[in-house]
């Protein structure tokens, strides 16, 4: 897909860091019906770090929201598959995103609506760690605790890097878990590339009652491709044919080797 994006390039680093989180949610956690994307009782997912679509569109296609061939149109003229997801034109996208710091508020609104309608769906919001710089994230964090919503789960893709440099250097948000705890959230840290740990964290017995829940998933930007891992320059990049082949080879090797 990034190769298809041609000279425009794509957000490949964050796409790879979030991919395991998104895949776990779609294929191991969420109650969804891809044939019926507007089903009122479905669990919802908001990719608040909207630029990580490279880890999101393939999961939507694989889940069956739209044909996998549509992925070929990514960032192509006339395609709905933009560099940031939009509900209009892309089935399965529960909410449009792109500008940082919006998703948690929207997720809280959805979670409160569920309570009003006595529906039992959950709302998952995937945030970036650079996104933690945005004040609006903390407005929403405060309000979610105030309203005791336990059907709102935030997942932070903690890859340690943001656009300009490392998170520590740009705007240090540590101690991140303490911050969320002090805002009244149940907090849990996992390896964001360990599917077992991720699945476990989402299990009902770990989900708190009467308070919101945040999972800080420690990840690697550019995960699975040796020359991309932890490289700031791969946040948004153009791939050559050769790089694409190398990357794909490494990822598929990792897949077969890892299991």
């Amino acid at each position, binding site marked *: 897909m990034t190769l298809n994006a041609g000279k425009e390039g794509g957000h490949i680093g964050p796409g790879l860091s979030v991919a395991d989180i998104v895949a776990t949610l779609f294929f191991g956690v969420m109650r969804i019906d891809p044939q019926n994307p507007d089903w009122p009782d479905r669990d919802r997912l908001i990719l608040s770090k909207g630029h990580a679509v490279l880890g999101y569109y393939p999961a939507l296609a694989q889940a069956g929201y739209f044909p996998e061939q549509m992925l070929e149109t990514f960032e192509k003229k006339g395609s709905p598959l933009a560099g940031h997801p939009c509900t*209009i034109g892309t089935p399965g996208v529960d*909410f*449009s995103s792109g500008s940082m710091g919006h998703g948690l508020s*929207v997720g809280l*609104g959805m979670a409160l609506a569920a309570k009003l309608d006595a529906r039992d769906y959950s709302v998952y919001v995937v945030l970036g760690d650079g996104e933690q710089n945005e004040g609006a994230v903390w407005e*929403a964090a405060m309000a979610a605790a105030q309203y005791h919503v336990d059907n709102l789960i935030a997942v932070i893709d903690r890859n340690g890097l943001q656009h300009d440099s490392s998170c520590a250097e740009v705007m240090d948000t540590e101690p991140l878990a303490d911050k969320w705890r002090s805002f009244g959230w149940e907090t849990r840290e996992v390896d964001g590339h360990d599917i077992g740990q991720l699945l476990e964290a989402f299990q009902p017995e770990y989900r708190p009652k009467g308070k919101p829940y945040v999972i800080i998933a420690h990840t690697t930007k550019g995960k699975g491709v040796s020359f991309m891992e932890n490289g700031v320059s791969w946040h948004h990049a153009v791939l050559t044919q050769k790089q694409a082949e190398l990357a794909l080879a490494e990822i598929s090797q990792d897949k077969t080797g890892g299991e």
Partner: protein
Amino acid sequence: MTSQSIKDRSGGSYRSIFMDALIDAAEETPEILLLVADLGRAMGASRFSTLFPDRCFQLGIAEQNLIGVAAGMASCGKIPFAATFAPFATMRCLEQIRDDVAYMSLNVKIVGTDSGVSLGTLGTTHYAIEDIGLLRSIPNMVILSPADGAELYQAVFAAAKHKGPVYIRVGGSQQPAAVYQENCNFTIGRAVTLTQGNDAAIIATGTMVERAVQAAEILLRGNIRVRVVNMHTIKPLDDEAVLKAATETGAVVTIEEHNIVGGLGTAVADVMAQNGVGRLLKLGLPDQFSHKIAPYSDMLARYGLNPEEIVVNVENFVCKRRAQI
């Protein structure tokens, strides 16, 4: 609404009439919710929360979250009314309005009370003189600016029925001067002609409509017949009413409690210029910040927005037009 209910509300402020309307609309429509941002007490939100305890949400002093939460609720079929003072309801959270509400045309209603310079002595941070201009440039937004209490009441119902984002621009703690003695018909996007005349047309919105009517009465004594058009919907603008006024009178005066840049006057100018009809005089707040506070009525007087000065401006404009012809 019966004329009896208008009478019952006489003495009410813009804020309290908004709350009356919202309560009545909420009785009819269970999806209606009220979201406030620590200015709920000013508008009597407790009257709503007493009647509908589950449907009122206090979000604190956090307007970005206010609009984001409203958007999430709207995506689940609710009709949230997010209400706070106009400067905070439109500027702090402008990106949330654009990205989370308007982008997907979600059914969020934003209510900005205390708009314009109605918080006179509180100073510029508490004025909303740019709100129309900012929201007018966002696709899918509907902007309502009702003229008085009766129209505000209707506007709340119309907003609730309309599918998509709406901004209702409301006055503050003042009692609205009545434009309508009885029921008014309120249709989004359809301007109301209040007086007939072909010497000039005053197109006014919100608080300025009643002043325009007063000005037209004074002008009539001098034999200048002015058509007053109540442009209660700024977007979508009633282009037809603008064109009719411009062609039939040749002289259009817009009046608004808003910066003359970007508001009603600019919207009307777009229509007139693109069709090449009529001459335009824009009255409103000058494109500058005020560094000297004053009570509300004095603020309006300072900027020539009382009927007497409107009369002088319209007279001069009409005379100039006649000299040109």
